[in-house]
């Protein structure tokens, strides 16, 4: 069963060409030309990843992202037409996992999609990790706060597993970009900052500590 990508993009040429390119790479592609249609298609189910343009008629990409995140943890990749700081930040705050700036090569797009779809695969037999009231089960990919199970988006979960594997050690943004997002060297570190913010909202703000000028660490 191939991976299904829902592409929401208003420009017809981009929608068709990106769709055809992804199909060549073996993805199944469903597409929508505006935000509301996109939301409808998504709710009809069966998509493994959302590829969204920021500027969309009707419901825009950021609004769509927020609506999807209310019910689903599916990976979301934004395509920013402008690469403006504001677009990127609002997209990531709304719950997107990563973004690409248009025009992007298909190879880059596919690499980002693969990185987002890559499941966290820890070594088998890893014991449960306990940090105060936070419990991480790397095998079952489950996270509990004060005994209650919480749901994390795939990127958030991978970020937490990275922290959990190095408790108390400061991880700088470049390392996190490389290990969690698969970026070579030139990733945008705001992706890390905003994902850490989302993770903090779910597992408690003081669990992940900011080390100014360096990066983040998980409090033991």
């Amino acid at each position, binding site marked *: 069963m191939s991976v299904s990508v829902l592409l929401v993009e208003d*420009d017809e*040429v*981009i929608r068709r*060409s*990106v769709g*055809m*390119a992804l199909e*060549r790479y073996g993805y199944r592609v469903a597409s929508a030309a505006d935000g509301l249609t996109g939301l409808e298609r998504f709710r009809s189910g069966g998509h493994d990843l959302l590829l969204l343009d920021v500027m969309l008629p009707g419901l825009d990409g950021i609004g769509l992202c927020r609506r999807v995140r209310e019910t689903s943890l599916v990976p979301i990749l934004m395509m920013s*037409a*402008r*690469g*403006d*700081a504001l677009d990127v930040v609002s997209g990531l705050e709304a719950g997107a996992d990563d973004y690409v700036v*248009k*025009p*992007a*090569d*298909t190879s880059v797009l596919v690499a980002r999609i693969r990185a987002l779809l890559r499941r966290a695969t820890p070594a088998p037999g890893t014991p449960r990790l306990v940090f105060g009231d936070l419990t991480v089960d790397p095998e079952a990919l489950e996270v509990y706060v004060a005994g209650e199970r919480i749901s994390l988006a795939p990127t958030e979960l991978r970020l937490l597993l990275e922290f959990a594997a190095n408790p108390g050690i400061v991880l*700088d*943004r*470049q390392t996190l970009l490389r290990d969690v997002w698969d970026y070579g*060297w*030139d990733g945008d*570190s705001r992706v890390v900052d905003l994902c850490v913010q989302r993770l903090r909202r779910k597992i408690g703000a003081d669990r992940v500590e900011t080390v100014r*000028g360096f990066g983040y660490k998980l409090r033991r």
Partner: protein
Amino acid sequence: MSPWRSLRWQIAALVAVASGVVALAVGLLVHRSTFDRSLNLGRDRALTALMADPADPGPLPAALAAQIGGPDTYVTWYDDRDPDVPWMWAATTAKAVRIDMGGELRNLRALDRHIVLASLGVLGLVVPLAALAAELPNHRLRRVARTARRVADGDLEARTSAGRGGDEITGIAAAVDTMAAALHDRLRTEQRFTADVAHELRTPLTGLVTSAELLPEGEATDLVRDRVRVLRTLVENLLEISRLDAGAESADRVEVPLGRFAGDCVHRTGLAAEVTVHGDPIAVTDPRRLDRILANLVVNAHRHGRAPVEVRVAGTTITVRDHGPGFPASLLAEGPRRFRTGASERGRGHGLGLTIAAGQARVIGARLGFANAPEGGAVATVRLN
């Protein structure tokens, strides 16, 4: 500028000279008329004495004797043969008298002294006052000059805020402000145009990039893809410049080992450059922006200069040198300008690479300098702090 050539002292000197000339003229007139009056009085006194009681003053001086024409002619003569002991002579045929004019002379000399002292006193008061009064316009002029220099250095928001006044200084200040505003407008228009063009091109270009990748392999496809790549680089450069223009960029600093970083950066450009590193320098800077700077300098050196291209890392200073014709004079004087490559011998280009390098250098607080080596070739220097 020497402080003694400042407008303040020029005005003070002018006031001093003018006051001096006035004092001299008034002094001379007063001296002259006082002297004339004392001569008249002396003549009257001498003639009265001649009528009353002519004593024999001894031999007449030759100048006086020559004046006596005949009987009933009365003559007078001011005798200053000894300048300190003047006399007034009155004479007629066979009669003569002389009276002492020493008192008048002393009075006149005292008057002269008073005039000189009073003039000096007034000068002593007026010159500092003039210097002080000149400080006010001077201060305003200096502010205008400062503002003009700031505008020249690129701060187009600088204004003289000259206020009201309606004099020539307000006029020149207003002219400088108008000039700065006009420059600002032009720059804004240029920046808006760059941003608009880049944004408008982006959507069709995105479709073009992905569509070109879908074409079947072949020679024609390679040609199309090559041109799409060039077009894409151009649009991305324009977008980068418009982001830098907007001034919303900020540096994301980490510790960067410069030696290895420069080597990697040159490697990523895919161009040949000889990298030499002195020591093991480490800088705290934004690696992505530094990479953009170095890559643009190396690409520029290859495109507009000639191999070998040398990248030298010494401390936190990185120099990129080529062996071509060197930077054109306009670039050395004004810095890089978009869509302007200056001399045609430096080949084709959009002038965007160096504009981006300069913009990114500003964001990371590095100084980017352009020069030509004495033995030929362009030298770009990045100083990180």
